[in-house]
């Protein structure tokens, strides 16, 4: 994965840039010592690292605006950063950039239960948004698996999803408004506490724009009342395709579970060894969770289990207690960590039409043999959001490249069956060069034209999302 060579002129002016930033920001806001900026050299796509020129950690919207104004005037690229949990390299710096971290913007601004929203600063972590409202039995629905650490700013940048978005939607469906700072330091609100846009849906455009259009400093989020209860059921099958067919039948039956999770044999065995959840010995495992009162849960699970029985399951296991429910989820929640224990891995998140699930799983198996790399599959089956985990050895020369090559094959396959490159992680640098497989030059041109409107000098996170050769003329024109 290439990054553009750093601008030597910017590098040569580091002292001047730092001094200008220090002159408009409070003490301890600008981090520039070589040993300290190293903390910002990568995000969760840790195979790629590059210390930034410096980092700023503003504590207010006005400070964000002040920092951006300086960078805008001096022509310095800015890479916004939430908590640095991006799996796609969304917060990966270049040597000539200023990292703008929003971690100090972590307050709750307003909570309104009657109108069902919370306004938070964007550096607040996903889970602590729910934490702020759960005493009143409310929650914030999008639940990316990094929710303990990831920031709302990053959730908005990548339009993050999670296991429960089959019912509740992803970030964009739960976002009512933002306060955003444009690259030239302009501050504006988009949306608010009402539901619809007054004109063009700029809020919908901002969500998922990977920090390329502006820096979100505050977000108004929809909060929901917690359901009375939730209960998972575990279903084991001896065939991936049968499990896939079972998913389609459940969806067609008119029950809408909050989550349908899928694990294949490698993930089942690995997480079983790691977490001892007591999973059965099988090829494919589904975890289906429904919500409601105890009797409503019983009724929905009865429908789901009767469908599952028609698909000759190896085992059906209904949670009879909170402890059993936790054990059903334990293996699924440990899956990434478990694979990480046995190998380095790359996690993809291409999405496919649910009907293509069996074919795509079969093809991934074939690719795994061809490339000689093991692949575990664990994913949100209800919405076709796959998560192939390709295992490789970071210490073996060429293995990462081989893994990336195989990953590209899988993602192209996702696009070819009618899906997309990324369902919830974002493009970042990881899928940047594959964009031409999903989009025509015209499709990409109009997206870049949108960036021209918000950031004419292409200073905000410029080396992401679009293939470098496609965005090159714009990035160079800006220099």
């Amino acid at each position, binding site marked *: 994965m290439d990054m553009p060579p750093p601008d030597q002129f910017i590098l040569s002016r580091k002292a001047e840039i730092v001094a200008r930033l220090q002159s408009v920001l409070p003490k301890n806001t600008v981090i520039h010592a070589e040993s300290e900026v190293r903390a910002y050299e990568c995000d969760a796509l840790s195979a790629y690292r590059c210390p930034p020129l410096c980092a700023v950690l503003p504590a207010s919207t006005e400070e964000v605006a002040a920092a951006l104004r300086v960078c805008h005037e001096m022509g310095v690229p800015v890479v916004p950063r939430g908590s640095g949990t991006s799996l796609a390299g969304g917060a990966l710096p270049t040597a000539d950039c200023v990292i703008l971290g929003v971690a100090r913007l972590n307050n709750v601004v307003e909570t309104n239960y009657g109108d069902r929203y919370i306004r938070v600063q964007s550096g607040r972590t996903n889970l602590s948004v729910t934490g702020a409202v759960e005493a009143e039995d409310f929650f914030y629905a999008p639940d990316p698996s990094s929710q303990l650490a990831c920031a709302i700013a990053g959730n908005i940048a990548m339009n993050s999803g999670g296991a429960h978005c*089959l019912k509740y939607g992803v970030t964009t469906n739960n976002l009512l408004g933002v306060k955003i700072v444009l690259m030239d330091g302009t501050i504006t609100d988009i949306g608010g506490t009402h539901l619809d*846009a007054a004109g063009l849906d700029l809020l919908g455009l901002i969500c998922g724009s990977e920090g390329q259009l502006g820096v979100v400093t505050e977000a108004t989020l929809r909060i929901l009342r917690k359901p009375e209860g939730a209960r998972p059921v575990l279903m084991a099958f001896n065939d991936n395709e049968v499990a896939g067919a079972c998913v*389609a039948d459940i969806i067609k039956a008119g029950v809408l579970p909050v989550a349908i999770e899928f694990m294949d044999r490698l993930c089942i065995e690995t997480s079983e060894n790691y977490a001892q959840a007591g999973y059965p010995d099988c090829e494919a495992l589904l975890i289906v969770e429904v919500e409601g009162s105890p009797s409503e849960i019983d009724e*929905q699970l009865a429908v789901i289990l009767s469908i599952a029985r028609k698909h000759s399951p190896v085992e059906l296991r209904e949670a009879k207690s909170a402890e059993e429910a936790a054990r059903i989820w334990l293996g699924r929640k440990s899956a990434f960590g478990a694979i990480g224990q046995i190998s380095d891995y790359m996690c993809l998140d291409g999405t496919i*039409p649910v009907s293509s699930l069996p074919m795509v799983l079969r093809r991934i198996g074939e690719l795994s043999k061809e490339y000689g790399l093991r692949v575990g599959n664990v994913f949100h089956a209800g*919405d076709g959001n796959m998560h192939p985990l390709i295992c490789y050895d970071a210490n073996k020369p060429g293995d990462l490249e081989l893994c990336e090559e195989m990953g590209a094959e899988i993602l192209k396959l996702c696009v070819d069956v009618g899906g997309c490159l990324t369902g919830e992680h974002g493009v970042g640098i990881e899928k940047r060069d594959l964009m031409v497989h999903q989009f025509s030059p015209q499709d990409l041109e109009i997206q870049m034209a949108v*960036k021209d*409107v918000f950031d004419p000098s292409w200073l905000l996170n410029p080396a992401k999302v679009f293939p470098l050769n496609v965005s090159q003329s714009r990035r160079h024109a800006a220099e």
Partner: protein
Amino acid sequence: MNPQTELELVDAITGTKGPLRIIGGGTRDIGNPVVGETLCTSSLSGIALYEPGALTIVAKAGTSMNEIEAALDVENQRLAFEPMDHRTLLGTNGTPTIGGVVATNASGSRRIAVGACRDHLLGVRFVDGTGTTIKNGGRVMKNVTGYDLVKLLAGSYGTLGVLSEVSLKVLPKPETSATLKIHGLTDTQSVYALSMALGSPFEVTGAARSDDTLIRIEGFATSVAYRLAQLKLLLAGFGDMTVVTDPSASQAIWTDITNVATFATRAGDIWRISVKPSDAPTIITAMPAGTKTMMDWGGGLIWAQTPAGTDPRIALSAKGHATLIRADAKTRAALPAFQPENPILTALSQGIRTRFDPRGILNPGLMG
């Protein structure tokens, strides 16, 4: 102009010199009046793909809503955002199209629970003002690949591009539905009751006030019965209640709310006002004299019937926004249909329009 294919649509846009007035079925004459040659998309018709097991439908933009709904009905599915049929309120004839639904982000009462059309829109194909065909999004439910122009196109009223194909998420129809009516509440009491219902765990899918305060529950029969009972307990202090348990009678109530049927035959202008629910009662009080209102979305949507030519936006004072939906020619010429936004957002929107439609030929001026 009445292109039969996407290629003919490209030719029509590329070949035109003057402005175009873009319509689907022509049932939603909303926005500032547009002068231009009519470009009608209704011949771009047909369902391209429907996968009930994947909860997705892909259709050409001119496909009639009747055809979409009939196809979904066979599989006991629906467009869950409950698209508004504007014919009732606007007195228009013609056949509503799925492209028109998307272009106007037409969403009904269930929007409060499941989101608007834009939340169910998975992908679009459109031809921009330069005659370039563009696709964005796709047909899968989770997709963060590139910028989300899908949301941008929803509710852009044909000013950024002419839709040629749309893909949407569909959902199963519930087994049954019922409506709880609370009689005789003030607007303030009504919003309070609706907020309690929406803030309960009982999955309310409609929360409106016409004469009565109305709360809808949908799902399996036993579940609907249980949740109705719980809501009656929760809201017992508010006043007399009745329950409509016949599913078709219940649905008829919500079709009327969604389509604003009560204002259809009354004279005056019709405004659609989007606000924070708890602000609604105060805003209603500040409306021009002679205004009649109803609320949907728990108070978050006010429908106001105002004396002709009056502007209710004076009542808003920066809280939310109002759109003029129906008025005579004189009022439409005098008042901007869409509420002007702050100068920063106006400049951004204008910048986007210039990129998508540099010649300014697609429904020019419709949104301001």
